C-alpha cells in the first residue's frame, strides 16, 4: 500500500470511527429489541393463520376428493404447478395502515431490503443490478417545486405526474381510472427516462424520486376529502427481462390492498380546542381550570411522537412549538399507546381526524404538567 492509499484508509477509518462513536448504542439496542419483538409477533400470527388455513384447505380437499373420486380415477392427469405463493403483508408503521399480498417477485428467495416509516413502505429487490425492482406505498402530502413543497390531493398528484409526461420527462403509456379498496384511483403506466429527484411526491420528511430507465406503474389512490393521497408505485429497470411481468403482478397487490384504519402514530400531530373545551377537559381530569390560563384562545396544540417520547406543546398558528407542556414517555403498538405511568390510549379515527381514547387509567401518579398534557391529548381531535 502506498502513501496515498494509506491516506485513503486512514481517512475512511477516521470518518467511520467518528460516526460509530456518535451513535447511541443503548437506544439503538432498544429499537432493535422492539423490531425483533414485532417480527416474533408477526411470525406467531402468520403461523396461526397458516395453520388454520391449512386445516381448512385439507378438509376442503378431502371433501372434494371424496365427492369426485369416481371422476378422478377415470381422468387422472399429471399435476401442473400453480403460481408461486405470495406473502401476505400487514404494515406496522404506515400512517394509513394496510394489508396486502405482496407480488411473488418480492419473495423469490432473495430477501428484499425493506424500509418502513409513517410516510412510506418500501421494498427493494436487487439481487444484482439488472434484476432490481421496487415497490412502494407512499403517503403523499405534497409535491416539490423549485422552492417549496405544495400540498396536493389525489387529483393534484395525478395532474403533477401527467404534467411530467406532457413535459417529456416521463413517457406515460396509459392512464386509466380504477378502484383500490373501493376508493377511486388512477393507474398510470410509465416508461421513465432519467432520474427526477423528488418528483414522486413528498411525505412527512422527504420526497421520493423517479428512477430513470425503468418501466413503472404509478397508482394514485384518493383517500377521501381532506386526506393526503396514497401513491402505490413499482418500477424495474427496462434491462430487467421480467420488468413487464413484475409490473403486471402489481394487479394482485392492488386487488388485495386493504386500508385498515389509523395506525402508526409517529410524527407530528396538530389540534385546536376552544377555551371552553380545554376547561372541560381539565375539569374532567380533576385539574383546576386555572391550568388553562395562558394556553391561548383558541388552544392550539402539537404532539410530536418520536423515539419513545411524545412532546405535547402549545403551538403557534403555523404549528410550531410555542411552549412545551410535557414530554411523555410511551411505547406504541398498532393502534395503541402505553404511557410510562401505565395509562393506555387507543387511537381511533383517521390520520386527518384521530382521537386518543383512554382505555386504561394510569397506574402511577403523574406530574401536574403531564396530567394536563394527557387531558388535552385525550380531549382533542388530532390531524397530521
Amino acid at each position, binding site marked *: 500500500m502506498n502513501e496515498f492509499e494509506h491516506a485513503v484508509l486512514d481517512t*475512511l477509518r477516521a470518518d467511520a470511527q467518528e460516526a460509530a462513536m456518535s451513535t447511541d448504542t443503548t437506544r439503538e439496542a432498544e429499537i432493535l429489541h422492539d423490531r425483533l419483538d414485532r417480527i416474533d409477533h408477526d411470525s406467531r400470527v402468520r403461523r396461526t393463520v397458516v395453520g388454520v388455513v391449512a386445516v381448512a384447505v385439507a378438509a376442503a380437499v378431502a371433501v372434494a376428493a371424496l365427492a369426485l373420486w369416481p371422476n378422478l380415477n377415470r381422468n387422472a392427469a399429471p399435476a401442473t404447478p400453480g403460481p408461486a405463493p405470495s406473502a401476505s403483508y400487514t404494515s406496522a408503521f404506515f400512517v394509513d395502515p394496510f394489508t396486502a399480498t405482496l407480488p411473488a417477485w418480492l419473495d423469490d428467495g432473495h430477501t428484499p431490503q425493506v424500509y418502513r416509516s409513517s410516510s412510506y413502505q418500501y421494498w427493494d429487490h436487487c*439481487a444484482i443490478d439488472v434484476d432490481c425492482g421496487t415497490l412502494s406505498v407512499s403517503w403523499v402530502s405534497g409535491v416539490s417545486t423549485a422552492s417549496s413543497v405544495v400540498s396536493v390531493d389525489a387529483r393534484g398528484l395525478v395532474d403533477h405526474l401527467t404534467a411530467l409526461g406532457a413535459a417529456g420527462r416521463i413517457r406515460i403509456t396509459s392512464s386509466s381510472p380504477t378502484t383500490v379498496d373501493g376508493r377511486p384511483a388512477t393507474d398510470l403506466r410509465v416508461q421513465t427516462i432519467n432520474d427526477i429527484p423528488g418528483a414522486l411526491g413528498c411525505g412527512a420528511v422527504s420526497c421520493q424520486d423517479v*428512477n430513470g430507465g425503468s418501466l413503472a406503474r404509478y397508482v394514485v389512490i384518493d383517500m377521501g376529502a381532506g386526506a393526503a393521497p396514497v401513491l402505490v408505485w413499482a418500477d424495474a429497470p427496462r434491462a430487467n427481462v421480467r420488468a413487464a411481468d413484475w409490473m403486471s403482478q402489481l394487479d394482485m397487490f392492488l386487488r388485495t390492498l386493504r386500508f385498515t384504519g389509523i395506525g402508526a402514530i409517529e410524527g407530528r400531530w396538530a389540534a385546536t380546542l376552544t377555551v371552553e373545551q380545554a376547561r372541560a377537559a381539565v375539569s374532567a381530569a380533576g385539574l383546576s381550570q386555572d391550568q388553562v390560563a395562558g394556553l391561548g384562545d383558541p388552544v392550539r396544540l402539537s404532539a410530536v411522537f418520536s423515539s419513545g417520547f411524545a412532546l405535547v406543546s402549545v403551538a403557534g398558528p403555523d404549528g410550531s412549538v410555542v411552549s412545551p407542556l410535557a414530554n411523555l414517555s410511551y411505547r406504541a403498538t398498532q393502534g395503541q399507546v402505553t404511557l410510562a405511568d401505565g395509562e393506555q390510549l387507543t387511537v381511533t379515527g383517521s390520520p386527518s381526524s384521530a382521537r386518543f381514547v383512554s382505555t386504561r387509567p394510569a397506574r402511577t401518579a403523574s406530574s401536574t404538567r403531564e396530567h394536563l398534557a394527557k387531558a388535552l391529548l385525550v380531549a382533542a381531535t388530532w390531524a397530521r
Partner: protein
Amino acid sequence: MGTSDADGSVVAFPRAARGGVTALFHVHHRRLVGLAALLVDDHGSAEEIVQDAFESLYRNWHGLRDPDGAVAYLDRSVVYGARSWVRRRVTARSYQLPEAGTSVSAEHESLRNRQREELSAAIRELPQRQREVVVLRYYLDLSEEQIASWLGVSTGSVKRHAFRATAALQRRMEAWA
C-alpha cells in the same frame, strides 16, 4: 464457535436467533454504523440501515452456519442497504453533504487533519459506485473479485471504477497541495 470483537476477545455465539443477533449487535453495531456512514453521509440513515441489516439477519438466521457467515451477511446487508438508500434518495430534501472545515477553525488544524478533511470530502463527492468501490476496497479490504460479486458487476467494471476514483482523489489532493 465464536466471533472476535475489536479487541480480539471471543464472544459466545448463541445458536438461538435472538441471542445470536443480540450478541452480534453488541460487538458489531458501532462498526457497521461507521461503514454505513461512509456510504450514505446522513447519520440517521446509517443507523436505520444497520437496524435493517440486523432485522434481516434475524429473519434469515436459520440459513446461517457460522458466525463468520453472520458477520459477512451484516456487512453485505449494510452495503446493499446503503445502495438502496442512495438509489431511491428518500432523503432528497435533507440529504446534504456535510460542509468540510466548518466545525473547527482552520488556524488550529494540523496539516494532517486538513488533508484528511479534504480527502474525506473528496470521497463523499465521488459518484456513488466509485465511492462504494473505494470503501469496499480500502475499508473492508475486499479483493476486486469480492467487490464484483458484492456489487453484481464485472471485475473489469470494478477496476474501472477504482481507477477513476483513485485518479479523481489524487487530482483533488494535488490541487489542494
